[in-house]
């Protein structure tokens, strides 16, 4: 008799909501409110909606806020996705049952993705109330892309380290910084080495075009999704052939 992993996805979704989802929603609401409300007041907007369009300063601010909220959400969602079970020893009872650990964590990764997308849908729908030109579908497409790109790296770090969210934040910010420092032909071997880091520098352009128009430069998307997907698969390989116990 094999374990009923698909049925267990409902429990995984519940865990996501209780342990990550509420936090993501609260942070998203607070972040959006504290940045947008004063601006709206400063612009002396009398109506309930803020007029804006792609390319305007307000639009750029909204882009920055929403893309930061997405990145933070993925960071929170990935926090401990595998490492908590290892650190806390929860794996002992889970994987004495007739289930495949690779499938278990693959399912968990995608259940969490659904959770992140649903919360992003909720937040962006609220945002649309005051910014009618904001396209929820485009934004969700961007959220899914970032989840794969950043979440894949986070998954790999969660499989291989105990301090996954910290290392993910360091990798994410470190990549941006190092790529900015060592860019151009004068960077030499360092410039080539930083090409191995996550292609986070492509995110700004992708965010701008994807959230604004629903389309993006394909090579950028392939780089981002491909990098995350490769990291995710490496994480699964480590889970398959590595040890769960320390």
């Amino acid at each position: 008799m094999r374990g009923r992993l698909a049925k267990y996805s409902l429990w995984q979704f519940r865990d996501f909501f209780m342990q990550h989802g509420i936090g993501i929603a609260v942070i998203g609401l607070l972040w959006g409110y504290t940045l947008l409300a004063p601006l709206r007041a400063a612009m002396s907007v009398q109506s309930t909606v803020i007029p804006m369009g792609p390319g305007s300063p307000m639009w750029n601010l909204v882009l920055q806020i929403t893309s930061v909220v997405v990145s933070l959400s993925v960071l929170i969602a990935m926090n401990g996705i595998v490492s908590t079970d290892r650190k806390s020893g929860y794996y002992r009872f889970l994987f004495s049952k007739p289930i495949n650990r690779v499938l278990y964590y693959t399912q968990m990764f995608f259940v969490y993705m659904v959770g992140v997308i649903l919360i992003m849908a909720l937040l962006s729908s609220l945002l649309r109330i005051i910014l009618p030109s904001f396209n929820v579908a485009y934004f969700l497409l961007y959220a899914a892309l970032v989840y794969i790109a950043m979440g894949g790296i986070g998954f790999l770090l969660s499989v291989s380290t105990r301090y996954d969210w910290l290392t993910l934040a360091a990798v994410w910010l470190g990549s941006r910084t190092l790529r900015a420092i060592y860019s151009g032909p004068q960077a030499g071997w360092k410039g080539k080495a930083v090409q191995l880091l996550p292609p986070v520098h492509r995110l700004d352009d992708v965010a701008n075009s994807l959230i604004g128009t629903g389309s993006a430069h394909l090579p950028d998307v392939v780089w981002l999704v491909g990098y995350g997907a490769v990291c995710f698969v490496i994480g699964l390989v480590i889970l398959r052939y590595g040890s769960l116990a320390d």
Partner: protein
Amino acid sequence: MVCLSPAGDPAHAAAVVIEFKNVGKIYKSLLGNSVQAVEEFSLSVRDGEILGIAGPNGAGKSTLISLMLGYLRPTTGAVEIGGMPARDYVEQNGIGYLSELISINPRWKAESALVRYATLAGISDNEIPRRVQYVIELLGLEEHRDKKVKALSKGNLQRLGLAQALLRDERILVLDEPTHGLDPVWTQRFRDIVGDLRRPDRTMLIASHNLDELQRLADRVAIIDRGRLQRVVSTTYEAAAPATTRFRLTLASGFDLVTAAFPNAEEVGKGEYDVTVQSITDLNTSLVNLIGRGALIASVVPERSVLEQQFREAVGEPR
């Protein structure tokens, strides 16, 4: 005394279910330090057998169990269950496992934790309420079913851990320090439960520091120390044939008759005497003699159990 060689097998015909084949495990740190946790460990466990695993702290008991469940990969050798690599077996069939450290998400409620584990164990939706109710009643968790795991006492958590191991009618049960944290009443209850679980087609491994417990429950006990199998001991007195054994007699009456039946008896007070005999047969002959003279015997207890004697020989005095 049956004292088998490290790789030896008992002389019964049941099929081998679990096999450790020259297993070694080395832990390596990032700094290059290494610790040999298990070394050249070979042992077969047969269908229907209850095998005890005994050893001092840090002997490698829990590492062996982690290797068996596929949580660790052996550095050398292999562990097979039912002729398959251990991890493949566990992923396909599952094992009833109670770990030494009970690690269940503290936010979960006791009953919902069991429902989750039952789902992962493959029990159908129709069957889950019945199985969960069964283990809750069996382990006396009725009044704790709605409590969060973090609110459970050590003993209740241990019982919840055992409950999840018994959710399914597993063919293999692995219990690591199963009575750790249980009070005397539940320790005895646990022993009764394990007794009831014994079946010709069910194999059990019990790792414990408690030699008395293993003496009562196990058919054989593997004694390990410093990651090596020192010896495998049968726990039955029928098989034991000690050259000299000491017993403690407790008499209700007829104290002055003891030396007539046991010339070397040493009085230790409160009607208790230590006697040394050459064999179990000698012991029984002398006891018949003593009873025949009119003494009333309250108890006869070996100074050290067969297992304790063997354990001390294999491992030495406590370090």
